[in-house]
């Protein structure tokens, strides 16, 4: 479980996060949604420790990251897996080496054990056949799957995904969404996904927070989101004329 308590973040005097508080449970896929520039990525970077908030607390199962020493932070980072927007696979390594990398760095396993674990992770994301390929030989969806395999290699307790579907077609996006959701339930981990893909919201949004102008505007689940009367959220969800008409039609049918 990750708790964010009154987090403030400014850049050159401009407030980007204005006292965000939220609770992200384990075993559920938690989504952060909002328009571009709403502060989603900054919030995620504050949670994972790539940015330090000016005020507030970020608690991983009760452990305050802002009060942690260097050693504690390093240990915590071994419990974190992250999928970046553009996958961020290491160019100089093959897919298998990418997945083995965190194991090589931090595990005390033998080479054969590390190899077995890496192959298991690749099989979990249906990428076993591409293990010897370089990242540049993979399609966007395959790169994302390889990055998921690398993120789960160490058996993380917390999984972060920054816009996992950006640049992918709807079908591939669905595969990635289901993979993230499946892994979250299978390993009972705390997953936070940063997205503005409405398919993801409806498919895997067990718990959703909506940010606007650096503030938390709405919180709920994918079952509640379509029936909300929050004007800002509705403007975001039904920004196109077609979607607005679909909603009006659905309301009339009810």
């Amino acid at each position, binding site marked *: 479980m990750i708790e964010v308590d009154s987090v403030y973040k400014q850049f050159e005097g401009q407030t980007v996060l204005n006292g965000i508080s939220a609770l992200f449970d384990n075993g559920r896929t938690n989504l952060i949604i909002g328009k571009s520039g709403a502060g989603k990525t900054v919030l995620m970077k504050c949670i*994972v420790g790539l940015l330090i908030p000016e005020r507030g607390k970020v608690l991983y199962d009760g452990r305050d990251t802002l009060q942690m020493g260097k050693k504690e932070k390093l240990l915590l980072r071994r419990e974190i897996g992250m999928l970046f927007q553009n996958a*961020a696979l290491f160019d100089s390594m093959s897919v298998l080496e990418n997945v083995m990398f965190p194991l090589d*760095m931090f595990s005390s396993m033998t080479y054969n054990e590390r190899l077995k674990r890496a192959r298991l992770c690749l099989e979990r994301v249906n990428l076993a056949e591409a293990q010897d390929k370089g990242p540049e030989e993979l399609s966007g969806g395959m790169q994302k799957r390889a990055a998921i395999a690398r993120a789960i290699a160490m058996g993380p307790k917390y999984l972060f995904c920054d816009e996992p579907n950006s640049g992918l077609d709807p079908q591939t996006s669905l595969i990635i969404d289901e993979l993230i959701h499946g892994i979250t339930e299978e390993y009972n981990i705390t997953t936070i996904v940063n997205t503005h893909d409405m398919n993801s919201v409806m498919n895997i949004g067990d718990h959703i927070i909506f940010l606007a102008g650096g503030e938390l505007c709405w919180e709920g689940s994918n079952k509640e989101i379509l029936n909300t009367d929050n004007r800002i959220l509705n403007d975001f969800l039904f920004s196109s004329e077609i979607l607005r008409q679909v909603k009006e039609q659905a309301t009339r049918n009810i």
Partner: protein
Amino acid sequence: MILLDSIKTFGSYLMIMGRVMSRPQRWRIFFRQTMHEVYQLGVNSIPIVLLISFFIGAVICIQMKLNIESPWMPKFVVGYATREILLLEFSSSIMCLILAGKVGSNITSEIGAMRVTQQIDALEIMGVNSANFLILPKITALVSMMPILVIFSIAAGTAGAFAIGKFTGIMTPQDLIVGLQYEFNQWYIWCSVIKAIFFAYVITSVASYYGYTVKGGSIEVGKASTDAVVSCSALILFSDMILTQLLMQ
């Protein structure tokens, strides 16, 4: 303003170097990375070092012959002057200026591309000291390969001078050999190696710093590569002046 920016840049460079100069998290991976960099930065530079040194050695020999030939001057002076130029300046300073262009831009663009594609963020999230992981093997590799490159450069330059003497007949190989051996001071070779080792550190650390601190996209990476080569060249020339003064006193 420029002074303040320079102080800030130097401070940021020192902070990154502080992270670089820490104990590697996994020695096995550090040695693997270092061997890879020895090949990339050192072994791959041997052909260009040999090629340029050979021709520069030949050109120095021709220039010396044309410009200092006189009935009052012994014939071996051409060989002597060629040797001194190669040992004292070319094989250390000028060769490192050339390497600043080849190796420096390569390092900056490699690390810069990793920065803009979030590969460095991925390392940090895993708990890897990215500065140490990426930069220390490069510094170790080039610093340890540099004495070999200097020796190769001296040898190729001397061979170039010898070849031009032999094949064009502008001077006899015997005169050249006498000149090359005349009042030979072993310390000059050490000076050349010491200077080149220092320049190797400058090239790798400064180029890595520019790559590591890139913000933006591919245009910024290109600009950082240019800035890195300019800064490395300026620092090499400036430190050459100080090191020459210190070592040759």
